[in-house]
């Protein structure tokens, strides 16, 4: 049998015209359904005097107001437990999840029915298959499972592809390393932060993952690390594996874009299952390819909780499909998710993105862990990076390292960063999403 490269060649290779035609037909049905069944959507559409029949072209989507996270949270506060966006009752649902709450507005409750739930893992399949995961792989899912939707969907996608799937909820990092070696695991699914942590633990156990393990793919989600060049390179080296980025969010249910085996530096947009717009976060005007802006999603997969023009807060730069040579006609996000609009910090008039700082820090192989601290000193904002070197790094070279990092950070930002070296094993480690930025100014 000829080896297939695409999970769904019918749409992954579709012409732009056919793709937009497909999107329009799905959009009409989604708007009809949402207007009929979701009180929130009926209200929002009535407020702008928009009827489902008004969708004549994809351009008409722009007449529909945005949906925000704040709106969803408020709706759940006003009408516990699920707000008025749901199109079904909780008795008709199959699955309950909630967001991780890292965006600061508290967890959001989410319900899915059978097809919505299966759809979430189907979205992961596009990416996993494109990256090279096959039915002879052995996948270890390093997740605590629980309420956070995180890697549940990835788990079911591994199974759907036919790979032997190992759930490791409740296992320690040491146990997971042992399982990776014992079972000859070929694919690790985790956050990038946790893959770094596992590599540290493996080293302490005397295991050389790049040499001794069978891992060939690291599949990452939950954080932008796998698209941060410095972090990606570091992970590739310590694991001796290809590192792929598969972003998604609990609100959307599944992956929204994925990295293919060509690793062009961009992530393919799942255009047959979403309409993904990029807007200027300030003016809300739609942006063209090549312009950086906020990602706005309309999902065709979530029927229970219709998600139309949802402002994700994620920053992206869309480029045309020719950016990648894999043959897919789906456009891409160059550099993946570039950060979150609300992650950006302003220090002495300079925009600081934690992911850009991380990219520089990860260039230094001597660094094991780091933390960014923003604070005020004599009424002036300051930024400091705490650096924890690897245990083998000699203290007589600390000053040299400090200087090199400070110079690189200055060159990239034209802003002075203080660099403080701390003793090994003093900074916090993370098993899910990292919290490496502390903005102490907000507490004053």
């Amino acid at each position, binding site marked *: 049998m000829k080896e297939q490269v695409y999970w769904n060649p*019918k*749409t992954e290779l579709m012409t732009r015209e056919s793709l937009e035609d497909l999107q329009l037909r799905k959009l009409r049905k989604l708007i009809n359904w949402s207007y009929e069944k979701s009180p929130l959507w009926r209200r929002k559409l009535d407020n702008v005097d928009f009827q489902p029949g008004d969708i004549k072209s994809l351009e008409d989507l722009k007449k529909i107001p945005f949906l925000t996270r704040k709106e969803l949270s408020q709706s759940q506060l006003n009408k516990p437990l699920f707000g008025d966006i749901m199109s079904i009752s909780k008795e008709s649902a199959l699955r309950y999840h909630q967001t991780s709450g890292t965006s600061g507005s508290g967890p959001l409750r989410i319900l899915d*029915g*059978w*097809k919505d739930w299966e*759809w979430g893992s189907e979205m992961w399949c596009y990416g996993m298959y494109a990256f090279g995961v096959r039915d002879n792989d052995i996948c270890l899912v390093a997740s605590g499972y629980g309420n956070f939707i995180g890697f549940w969907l990835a788990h079911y996608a591994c199974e759907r592809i036919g790979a032997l799937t190992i759930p490791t909820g409740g296992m320690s990092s040491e146990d997971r390393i042992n399982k990776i070696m014992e079972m000859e695991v070929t694919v690790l699914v985790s956050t990038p932060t946790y893959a770094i942590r596992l590599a540290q633990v493996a080293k302490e156990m005397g295991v050389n993952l790049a040499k001794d393990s069978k891992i060939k793919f690291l599949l990452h989600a939950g954080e932008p690390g796998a698209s941060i060049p410095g972090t990606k390179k570091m992970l590739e080296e310590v694991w001796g594996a290809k590192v792929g980025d598969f972003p998604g969010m609990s609100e959307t249910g599944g992956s929204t874009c994925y990295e293919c085996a060509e690793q062009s530096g961009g992530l393919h947009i799942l255009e*047959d*299952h979403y309409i993904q717009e990029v807007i200027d976060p300030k003016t809300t005007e739609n942006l063209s390819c090549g312009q950086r802006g906020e990602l706005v999603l309309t999902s065709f997969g979530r*029927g229970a909780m219709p998600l139309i023009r949802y402002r994700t807060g994620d920053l992206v730069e869309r480029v045309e499909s020719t950016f990648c040579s894999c043959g897919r006609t789906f456009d891409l996000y160059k550099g993946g998710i570039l950060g979150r609009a609300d992650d950006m910090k302003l220090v002495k008039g300079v925009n600081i993105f934690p992911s850009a700082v991380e990219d520089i820090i990860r260039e230094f192989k001597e660094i094991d862990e780091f933390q960014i601290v923003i604070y005020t000193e004599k009424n002036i904002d300051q930024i400091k990076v705490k650096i924890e070197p690897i245990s083998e790094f000699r203290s007589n070279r600390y000053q040299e390292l400090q200087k090199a990092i400070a110079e690189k950070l200055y060159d990239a930002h034209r802003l002075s960063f203080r660099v403080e070296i701390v003793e090994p094993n003093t900074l916090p480690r993370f098993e899910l999403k990292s919290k490496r930025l502390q903005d102490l100014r907000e507490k004053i």
Partner: protein
Amino acid sequence: MLSYNDDPKLVEEKVMQTYNLLKELSAIEDFPAISFNARRALGVMWQVTSDLDLEFEQLFHLKV
């Protein structure tokens, strides 16, 4: 053996036949082992009809 590349229309017809059959089985009210397993299968089959752009509908009335 069926091949999508050789005869996409035939394969897509079979997908739709299976999908519609699962809808019928999902609606059976007096035999849980049939309807509940059919519903799960229908949730999966919906992915195929949606992926192939054959059918895109909500199935909550069937508890799917």
